[in-house]
Each structure stands twice: as C-alpha cells, then as structure tokens.
C-alpha cells in the first residue's frame, strides 16, 4: 500500500451495488460486469442489467488496456484537491473489452494526450478503502 497523503478530493461512496468493484481496485484489479442472461457488458457496476433487467451478473476482469476516447485538459477547478493539481487531464478511456470509463490520463505531459492514444491502467491508492483506476501511455 502506497503512503497516504491527506486526500482532499471527492471520495466515492461504496454501496451494495458497487462493493465488488471497489474491493477489486484495492487489490489493483479492474473489473466490469457482464449480464449472464443477455451477455451485455456494463460499466459502471449496477445490480440489474439495464438491457434485460436480469440480476444474474458476472464480474469480468479487464485487461487494463485501452485507448483514449476523449479528454480535456482542465485548467480551472475550484474543488479541493483538484485546484492544487491544475492542469490535469480528465479523460474517457475505451477499454479493449469495449466499455468506456471516465478517468484521468496521467504519466505524461497534458499536451501529449491524443484521442486514440493507447493507454494502460495504473492504480492510485487514495484511502484505505478507495483505489482509483487511472491510465497512462502504454
């Protein structure tokens, strides 16, 4: 476990629909869900399939590789934690498995980020319960 500095950013709330997702992230594993009835993949995690309303769900481990689907270099955000890190890159990454997730692109200068750029997951330990999936150039 990495050394924890005081964490000032928004801390996600773990609920019963998403607990498995957050617990896996603490182990540095990224998962999405797939419906066992209709086969539809989904992100973010939720208890009921929005395609067929089945509760029969399986967790699928993501390869952690994907490409940048879109991004923005944020130069202004007054929210605590973020204002100290400007500029930062907000992005949407399309995982190799096809689902898109919001994230930060890290590990390179913001001006180097491009749509379509190959990226891989990197895990940021924020609190003892919360680890966030971020992405860096692959």
């Amino acid at each position, binding site marked *: 476990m990495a050394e924890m500095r005081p964490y000032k*950013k*928004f*801390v*996600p*709330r773990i*609920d019963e*629909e*998403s607990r498995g997702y957050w617990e896996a992230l603490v182990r540095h594993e990224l998962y*999405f869900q797939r419906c066992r009835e209709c086969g*539809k*993949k*989904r*992100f*973010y995690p*939720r208890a009921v399939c*929005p*395609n067929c309303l089945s509760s029969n769900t399986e967790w699928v481990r993501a390869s952690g590789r994907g490409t940048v*689907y*879109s*991004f*923005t*270099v*944020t*130069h*202004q*955000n*007054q*929210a*605590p*934690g*973020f204002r100290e890190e400007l500029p*930062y890159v*907000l*992005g*949407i990454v399309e995982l190799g498995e*096809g*689902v*898109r*997730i*919001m*994230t*930060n692109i890290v590990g390179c200068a913001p001006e180097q980020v491009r*749509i*379509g750029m190959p990226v891989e997951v990197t895990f940021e330990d*924020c609190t003892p319960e*919360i680890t*966030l999936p*971020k992405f860096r150039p692959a």
Partner: protein
Amino acid sequence: MSVWGKTAVVGAWEHPTRFAPHMTPFQIHAESARGALADAGLTIHDVDGFFTSGVGPIGIMSLAQHLNLRPSYLDAQSIGGSSFVSHCLHAAAAIAAGLCSVALVTYGATAASERFAIGTGGAFASEPPDNFEAPFGPTIVGSYALVAQRHMHEYGTTSEQLAEIAVTIRRHAGLNPNAKYREPITVEDVLASRMISSPLHLLDCCMISDGGGALVLASLERARDSRNKAVVILGGAEAVRHLEAGERDLLDVAARQSGPLAFQRAGVRHADIDMCMVYDSYTITVLTTLEGLGFCKPGEGGAFCAGGRIGLGGALPINTDGGGLSSNHPGMRGIFLVIEATRQLRGEAGPAQVPDAKLACVHGTGGMLGQRHSGVTLILGRA
C-alpha cells in the same frame, strides 16, 4: 387528442437585472411573475398551473407560498437549464387536456452575487453515477469540453469555428441594452482568452449573472382575447442522454431525438424556420444542437455556423438577445430562450428583430453534455 396548436404564450417578461446582490431569488421570481402577468393582461388570481425549477427538491411549495398561489397543477421539472422549456411543453399538454387554464412559469437566481462558480466549482456528486466520475474532477465546462474534443477529432472542427459562434452572439448582445457584455469581440479575442478546459476558452463559455424571467401560457381561445399577438406551441419533444452502460457516443446529443420529433409533431420543415434560440452554455453546445436538430448534418456544424449564417441577416439567426454567452446566464437559461422567441414572433425584438419572423425553433440543453444532459425542443409560431 392532439396537444399542438392549442396553447399559446400570452405573457413573457425578462428581468432586466444582471447583478442583484440586494435581491433574493424568490424576489426575482415574484417580480418576473408580475411582469409576465401584466404583459398577458392577467392577474395572479387567474393562475391555476404553476411551473418552476432551480428552487430545491421541494422548493416549488415554498415558492407557491411566497406568491400565495393555490394551483391545481404543479410541475417542478428538474432537468437542468432546459427545465423551463420543458415546462412550456408540459403546460401545452396540461392546458390541452384541461388540467389547468393559465400556466405561470417563473425563474429567478442570484448566481453572480452569490459568487457561485457554476462551471468550474466541482461536480455535483450525490447519485450512483457520480461515484465513477466525480473522483476524476469533471467540471461542467470539462464535460462539454469532452464533447468538443471528440467533435474536433471526428470531424476536424476547429477552435476558430467555435469562436465564430461566440463572436456572432456577442454582436447580437450589442443590440440588447440589458446584455451584460456588449463590446464586440473577434475570433482572435476568443482564442486569446484563457483556456478553461481544453479546447474551450473563457469566451467559449457562458457567463455567470443574476436574473430571472417568467412566462404565462393559456389556451389559444383565451390568447385571442389578449392584447398581445399569440405565440402558439406548434410542436415539441424532450429527451435525455447519459453514459448508458458505458458505450455512449459523445456526439449523440439529446437534440437528435427531440429535434426531429418536434418538427414532425409541428408539421414544419427546417427551411420554414425564421430564427432559432439554442441554449449556448458553451459554443460547442450550439454547434452540436444545430446538428442534432437537423439544420445541418453531423460534422457540418462548424462550417454551418461560419460565414454569418447564424447571425442577424443570415439564413438562420440564433440567440438574437445575446444568449448566455453575452446577455445573461444565472445558471438555468431555458426561460430566456422562450422569452426571446416570443419577442421575435410578436415583432417586438427592436433592433434585433428578424424581419417578419413567423416560426421559431427553441432548444434547451440542461446538465452536462458529456455525461448526463437533457434536450427540449419547441416549435413556436404566430397564431
């Protein structure tokens, strides 16, 4: 039962204030109600349908108390800045169905004097999807910027093309004595303004002001007794877009659903539209809305907005009041879209008048374009 062509905007009033530290939001609601009812030639005792938004989860009851209203129809639609456009759609249905006869829609906010940094103040995080977005710092500007970046990638849209939208709308604001920003700007000014969230610069973003307004809607029969030219709701539709199950096409905006449906319901063609009021929270909002409504094809928005087409004197003048980019934006601008379209169709838009405007298209966008947003389209016409 058809809803269309039976309900009219009979009263419309925009509060002139842009900065009101001496006023409460409810006061702006009340003064706006007074203005719109006087414009309609009606009194508050005629109101039996009440519509508002932006007042807190059950705030419509507090506001009803503030105005001492006892309506038999209530609608506190809460889909962001487009809520007031949606109110007009819902009022048309309610009046056509006989659920109410005089609908009052009010708005008031003091975002500027409260120094509320709407676009860059951090995410509103309280519902399940927020847990998977807010940790990464999406601002409202950033959410729209994600769409702009993707649009540039897929279609080669440029910052200059987006800037031209802001320049055109600023030119219109120069004709509006109440507009907050009236000095002309150039494409170079927009590009030189500081980057807020790439590719959106400061001047790609709407302002934060105080303000408010109100509308009164009634049946067309009742409207014919009014001293004003009636502005009729000929068609309308609403839609929502979100991140789905993680496969959202960011360029698939709500206007793509609500626009064609509204045109179909009104039975009018795009070429018949004399002017358009589109929610200009950001320049990219205008571009994707005009594409979504069908005024041009997806990807053609940048070229469509260039060359003066969307300016007064062009083929499709938009936001003739100066929009949220230059006139006012207290946080939820939808009501001003309907107010300005009403002025235009009555022939009361002064130096910004579109000659002989008969048909207007209004489209409100609410929420965060790159996450969850609503779109509401109305087609308005002279009776």
